[in-house]
């Protein structure tokens, strides 16, 4: 398996884990998630995207 495929798997795993955690919290205590807005999640998502795309482009450029 090449590094690109592994990185893709890594992104989907990250998204899946993040989604699963939020879903689990929502099931246990829905009111907790209602207090949070997008800006508390979005920097983390943005930073993850930077890492993943950075690593993919590093491979392309070298």
């Amino acid at each position, binding site marked *: 398996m090449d*590094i690109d495929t592994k*990185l893709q798997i*890594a992104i989907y795993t*990250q998204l899946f884990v993040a989604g699963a*955690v939020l879903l*689990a*919290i929502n099931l*246990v*205590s829905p009111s*907790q*998630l209602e*207090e*949070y*807005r997008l*800006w*508390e*999640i*979005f*920097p*983390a998502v*943005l*930073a*993850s995207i*930077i*890492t*993943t795309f*950075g*690593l993919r482009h*590093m*491979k392309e*450029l*070298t």
Partner: protein
Amino acid sequence: MVLGFTAALPVGLIGLASILVLVYAAEVVVSRMQGVAKHYGISEVVIAMTIVSIGTSLPELSLHLVGSFNILLSDGNILSYLLSQPASFLLDSFGVVLSSPESAQSFKDVSATVLGSNIGSDVVQQTLVLGLVIFSSSLIADKHSFNFSRKFLIRDYAPMMGTTLMTLILALNWPNVINFLFNGGKLAAGGTLTRLDGLVLVGSFVAYTYYLYTTRKEELAEQGSSDPSTRPRIDFAVGILAMFAVIGSAEVFLRVVELAIAQTGLSGSMIGVASVGVVSAFPEMITAISGLRQGSEGISLGTLIGSNITNPLLAIGAGSVISTYAVPGPLVLWDLPMETATAGILLAYMFSKDAVGDYLAVVARGVGMDGLADRFEAMENRVISIAGAGLLIVLYFVYLYVRFKYFQYDFVEV
């Protein structure tokens, strides 16, 4: 009170001694453990990726871990918090469960000190130390310029800029910044590094390390090459003792800073930037210069820049996962933007210097300065001159001046 002292002079001396022990003991840990690992047949690649990579950031890392555990154990019941409010545990500042004013203040002070030390150390390395390394390297080779390899710029320097940018994005108080831009009001740009942010940073460190492991074995092996230990048990014991010295000195240093903040009113991040930030850059500088003397520029710069990737990703990441951090304003308003911009401009310049030179040559010829035009035309990509290195060194002092003059307070009440 620190070790029974409260007066400024002894406490100051204890603080200075603790930084020196922190940095020197970390060096001992790395060298001894490298020898021991080599003795037991662990490959040079693995040694480079674990002991060397983490070891060069050990002073910052241990400061973060000790500080974070201090915050975690200061107040509140962590287990009941985790079980009763998992979303808050993941997405909020730990400050929300700290009930006593002392522990809330300590949370801010420790956060500011460890983050200031970490980012301060990165700024010193990316400006002053990098400038000195390029300068010395050019002098040793008797040249007027220094040639970066394309591989280094893409695989080391660009990720370093990426980590700084990521830290900035995660550390900003987005609602406040957006509100300030559109509605005015008070700017309190320092946000919170939450546990989710910490997980992203540590996850990125693991991904980057894995990427290097799969694609760059030979160079990594060079970084991990060391003589095997002839007395592995003694070296292991000395390494463990030095590790205790690292942890102990980190604890003492944080107490000194808390006392200094209370007595002088200086901000924690400024103390971190000016003390640990400077001293903890020394080992990288010594490693880099000694690498140059042995003719291995790649290793010198690799160690220097590699430590700037480990510092934010692993040290800040792990600390945030443990305790979360309150981010001081100057960090996101000056330190991190200045660091990102310097790296971004240098990177863009290195890859477009040829084109910039040709453009300037046309302008110079247009005004009849042919000599200057010839020099512009001779400009090549990925080459930095001694003057450029000097500019990096000057930039460090500009950074310090602005930091001390305009960014004196860590936290602004909105």
